[in-house]
């Protein structure tokens, strides 16, 4: 007879509750800064504010995918299922963030570039990134044996990250992008760049910080707990059915 305690969700640790609250408040605060405090860009109009989500979400995806590759490597080294759960959570959260990045980018491009999508190198590499992690999740769902699954997915997570980096790296070498670079040198033919003034940075810096750290950390932690519980229940279910 399985113990009663393991069946129900364990109570959330205080730190997680605090983190969730902080992330939620931070999200609202950065939204407020981006939508109401930062000035309207005179060239691009209101749509420029989408940038306060667009760019941070890309970096958030990067943090989350980083969790996937680090989790995978540590799983291979230590064989502790916890690292694999972090890797899975990272892939899921990262994919959601990367999708936000793509969607907000497309909505921005429509009024500024007059098209939802173009096969620009930068856009191509972002789309490839989404595809690879979507494949990660599908492949994961297709493997039954849990140890095999963890091994394979750790390896695949490493390759996924390498593909992301090589695609980004290829794109650096091809200067034909029309995507503007806000921080750093902008390519000569960038279309839709805007001057990053102090007001922009005031709204951008907190948003970047939030998406780089708190957002992925909180979401990954919640997803991690969910996976822990799912695995425990799976075991118990087989035990109970086996009895």
């Amino acid at each position: 007879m399985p113990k009663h305690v393991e069946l129900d969700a364990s109570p959330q640790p205080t730190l997680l509750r605090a983190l969730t609250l902080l992330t939620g408040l931070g999200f609202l605060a950065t939204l407020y800064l981006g939508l109401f405090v930062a000035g309207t860009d005179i060239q691009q109009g209101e749509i420029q504010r989408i940038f306060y989500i667009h760019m941070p979400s890309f970096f958030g995806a990067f943090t989350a995918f980083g969790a996937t590759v680090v989790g995978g490597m540590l799983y291979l080294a230590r064989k502790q299922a916890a690292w694999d759960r972090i890797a899975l959570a990272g892939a899921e959260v990262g994919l959601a963030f990367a999708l936000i990045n793509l969607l907000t980018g497309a909505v921005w491009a429509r009024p500024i570039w007059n098209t939802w999508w173009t096969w620009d190198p930068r856009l191509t590499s972002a789309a490839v990134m989404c595809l690879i992690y979507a494949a990660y999740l599908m492949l994961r769902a297709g493997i039954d044996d849990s140890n095999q699954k963890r091994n394979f997915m750790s390896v695949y997570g490493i390759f996924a990250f390498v593909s992301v980096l090589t695609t980004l790296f290829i794109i650096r070498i091809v200067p034909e992008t029309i995507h503007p670079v806000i921080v750093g040198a902008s390519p000569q033919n960038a279309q839709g760049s805007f001057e990053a003034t102090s007001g922009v940075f005031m709204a951008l810096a907190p948003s970047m910080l939030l998406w780089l750290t708190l957002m992925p950390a909180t979401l990954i932690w919640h997803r991690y707990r969910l996976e822990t519980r799912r695995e425990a229940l799976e075991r118990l279910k087989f035990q109970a059915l086996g009895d």
Partner: protein
Amino acid sequence: MMMKLAGLASVLLCLLLISGGAGGSDHDETVPYLRTGGFNVPVLAGWENQSTDEIAQFHLAEHSATIRTAIVALDDPLAASQAELANWIDAGSVSPVYSGKVNLADGTWHVAIFEPDADISVSIMARRVGERTVVISFIERDESNRILMLTMAQEDESQRRAHTELVAATDLLMSPLAGEHGRVSEIKLSSGAWALYPGAGHTRMGMVFGNDSFLALAKGPIGVKLATLADAYFTVLLGFFITPDNSGYLALGLAAAFVTLGLLVFSYFWRARSLDQDAALIRHLARADD
């Protein structure tokens, strides 16, 4: 094992460094802009800024000239120009001494020149924006001068100089003063590269931009003054733009971001709920065993 991982980590790190390497930053100097009344115009350095929340207005006392930009709630450019003119003279409806049309990059501009009195000349360019009209006026009050600004489509688009249009405009507007011009000199101003045609009776300036000639005419040999005023007026005209209204797209983008994030968080709740159901099932099975 650790060796392998260290090797792996260093490969990843190298890739990260390569893909992250960005060049240094260099920013262009940008012209300061004035935002008011739903539009934007460059700020004229050295001019007194008399703008309000509705209009942009710059005044240069030295040459008793004013450049005013406003959006008028009329959809006829001529009527809108006359409405703007009423700010400067008391008389009722005044007909323009010259009117024309020119297609610039941002749309069709209607050119009108008014000379209601000897001491005032008003050059106006107006463009329809939906139900309203943008009016950019140049007002000059000096009895000893007549200074006019206008834009004409080029007759021969292969010409690099606005000579043909200048002659036409002079014949039309300055005929009593027409005469041979002196040596043509090139001057570079912030609005572009102009050709200055000095003369005893009058001074003329012309610039070609796109397929249009931008012209400034003045009575008398007043080259420097004309250059200052023409540069200021056409800087405002060429620099004028309306911030696009795309808040609908902003709402769409935010909705897309919220829905994606919401779906992720919702899926957490959903999956937690199905785990609760699993737990209930296991409890049921265990009880059935007992």
